[in-house]
């Protein structure tokens, strides 16, 4: 009797555990991934790269709390990232003397506090307006801080910035964080905590109200919520998490300069988040990882990578407003219904012309870049994809234009096949439901 009850409660506990595992499977996998990645990519550069990706993931997720969740387009989000970064670097300097009782892993809290404090002050002014006016105010505030950064040299360190030594702080569990691997794990841990927290916010009633304010501020106001207060709270939360990201950047680079509060930094986080997709929680994560990887690898390949970046952004805005995550999510019901096979042939058909177009466009950009920027110094001879030629000769240009035009024309045809496959899939889905 006793043992039977015992067994029953144990199997119940097991069932509860497995349900728990299933509910949180994504998070467990994510945590496992964060832990395991350095075992595979263990070189110094890839550790730095992954640390940077983690920082950008937190930064762009915090940005998406504004743009994606509450519908506020900000052009000055780097203010909170940068100011918190500066505060953290000053904290590192202040705490880097013997006898200070604070270890390095707590420094991101300094950033969070600074991000929150700045967001409270600036947010109170700017969240009174929404839409375009808010966007312009955020831009103005961003410029205000960026311009002040050059005046207030004692805090921002002028041109050369402020640097610190993270390994001087009180050791934490025997770690002094001199090595990049230890810093990576510190950053990864904070990233995990922040991502979970930000996801949790989206699931709370507040997260839903924020969505309501994004969708229809007038009705949210009628239901009895002050849209100003909702926007303000969102803004403060976003500022706090951006602050954590800034502090992590300070820890990672051990230096902060005025560029981190600049409009360029705000622009980068906007581009990352939007390319990733603002409509889904996964979007900014995708965008941050992808764009950071591109930023690092493309800048080795070509001097015109910023141009590619801008063109990609314009294309996404024009034809893919849901971003990459939106594109992936479009396929979720198809995958669930196991109808993806219908789409594959048409996608394969489209990939050919798409590659042609890409090759043509990239060829044109590279030719132009070489002819206009590099030719003045090293002559017009260039190499692309292992082929050597003269960028001043007409043939490569003609070839690139031909590739582009041909690719575009074929893509139009192939796109019809894609559309046909989609309508077939959609018809199938409708029948099932």
């Amino acid at each position, binding site marked *: 009797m006793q043992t039977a009850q015992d067994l029953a409660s144990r199997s119940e506990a097991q069932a509860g555990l497995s349900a728990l595992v299933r509910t949180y499977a994504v998070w467990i996998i994510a945590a496992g991934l964060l832990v395991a990645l350095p075992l595979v990519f263990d070189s110094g550069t890839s550790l730095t790269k992954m640390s940077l990706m983690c920082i950008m993931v937190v930064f762009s997720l915090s940005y998406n709390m504004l743009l994606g969740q509450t519908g506020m387009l900000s052009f000055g989000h780097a203010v909170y990232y940068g100011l918190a970064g500066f505060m953290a670097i000053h904290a590192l300097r202040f705490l880097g003397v013997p006898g200070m009782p604070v270890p390095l892993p707590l420094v991101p809290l300094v950033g969070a506090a600074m991000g929150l404090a700045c967001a409270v002050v600036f947010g109170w002014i700017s969240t009174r307006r929404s839409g375009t006016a808010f966007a312009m105010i955020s831009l103005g*505030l961003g410029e205000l801080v960026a311009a002040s950064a050059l005046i207030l040299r004692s805090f921002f360190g002028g041109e050369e910035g402020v640097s610190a030594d993270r390994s001087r702080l009180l050791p934490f569990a025997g770690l002094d964080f001199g090595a990049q691997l230890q810093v990576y794990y510190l950053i990864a841990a904070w990233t995990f905590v922040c991502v979970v927290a930000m996801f949790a916010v989206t699931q709370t009633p507040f997260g839903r109200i924020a969505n309501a304010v994004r969708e229809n501020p007038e009705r949210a106001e009628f239901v009895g919520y002050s849209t100003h207060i909702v926007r303000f709270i969102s803004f403060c939360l976003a500022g706090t998490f951006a602050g954590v990201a800034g502090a992590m950047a300070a820890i990672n680079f051990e230096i902060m300069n005025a560029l981190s509060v600049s409009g360029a930094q705000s622009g980068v986080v906007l581009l990352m988040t939007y390319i990733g997709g603002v409509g889904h929680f996964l979007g900014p994560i995708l965008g941050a990882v992808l764009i950071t990887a591109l930023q690092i690898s493309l800048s080795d390949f070509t001097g015109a990578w910023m141009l590619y970046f801008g063109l990609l952004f314009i294309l996404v805005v024009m034809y893919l407003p849901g971003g990459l995550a939106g594109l992936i999510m479009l396929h979720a019901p198809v995958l669930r219904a196991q109808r993806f096979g219908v789409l594959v042939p048409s996608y394969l058909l489209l990939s050919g012309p798409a590659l042609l177009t890409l090759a043509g466009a990239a060829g044109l950009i590279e030719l132009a870049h070489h002819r206009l*920027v590099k030719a003045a110094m090293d002559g017009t001879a260039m190499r692309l994809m292992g082929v050597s030629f003269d960028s001043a000769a007409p043939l490569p240009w003609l070839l690139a234009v031909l590739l582009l035009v041909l690719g575009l024309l074929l893509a139009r045809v192939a796109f019809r096949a894609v559309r046909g496959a989609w309508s077939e899939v959609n018809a199938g889905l409708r029948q099932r439901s």
Partner: protein
Amino acid sequence: MLELVVFSTLNGVLYGMLLFMLASGLTLIFSMMGVLNFAHASFYMLGAYFGFELARQFDFWVGLVAAPLIVGTAGALIERFGLRVVHRHGHVAELLFTFGLAFVIEELVQMVWGKLPVDYRVPQQLDFVAFNLFGTTYPAYKVFMLVIAIGMFLCLMLVLTRTRIGLIIQAALTHPQMTAMLGHNVPGVFMLVFGGGSALAALAGAIAGPALVTQPSMAALLGPILFVVVVLGGLGSLAGAFVASLLIGLVQTFAVAVNLSLADLPGMAQLSPAAGTLIGDLWRVTVAQVAPVIPYLLLVLVLILRPTGLMGNRET
């Protein structure tokens, strides 16, 4: 002192009129289409660079006429084949489209003309001293700029208030659906206004290029100031944009001329915080040094005291 006041006023009005040439287009485009054109300052930059290139190949005057025409056409095409495609995704997408456009234009300009400032010179016909006041000279080119800017202002006013197309534009500003119902081609008017606004910005760039510096960052430097002007004047208000342009122009020019800091105020000499601290920095910074910050401070002040701007009557 009088000399300073006279010259600062002249320069301030000149800078303000230049700002208005840009802000007028920006505010018209905004109130008609609800699009805040991030690339507006980029059209200004393109105007300067095309003006420079045409002046180098042909003549300054060719550039002055052709650069606005080229940029205006480009603007109209961008409206037709870019913005109108994005329009169905909403205002945020439109704003982001122009943001991406500004990004790409800056990169392209850097690629074609390099990262360093180009040598865009005042034409020889205008390279002389216009007048001599209190021992200081005033270049003829600045008088020329002022004349063009005021001329453009008058033309714009005449077109908007006295011509048929101006009346349709005014009607489409507030009642686009009604105007379309009456048989006017409102999308066409949008395209025209977008092109016209771009051309006006390019003209401002072509005349300002030789006097200021023609460099790839000129758009990024001016863009935020333009937004300040438009918000300060009240979104969508042309008269407000005019007042705000002159205000910002005068304030910035006067601020640059004042070399005073808090430490220079009478009776402050004995209070002097240590250098190298935040308060010490604030203490010793001169008005001239904070000049770039003043427009943004004004923006914040206006938003706290009067969220609709000086002459605006709408919240967003």
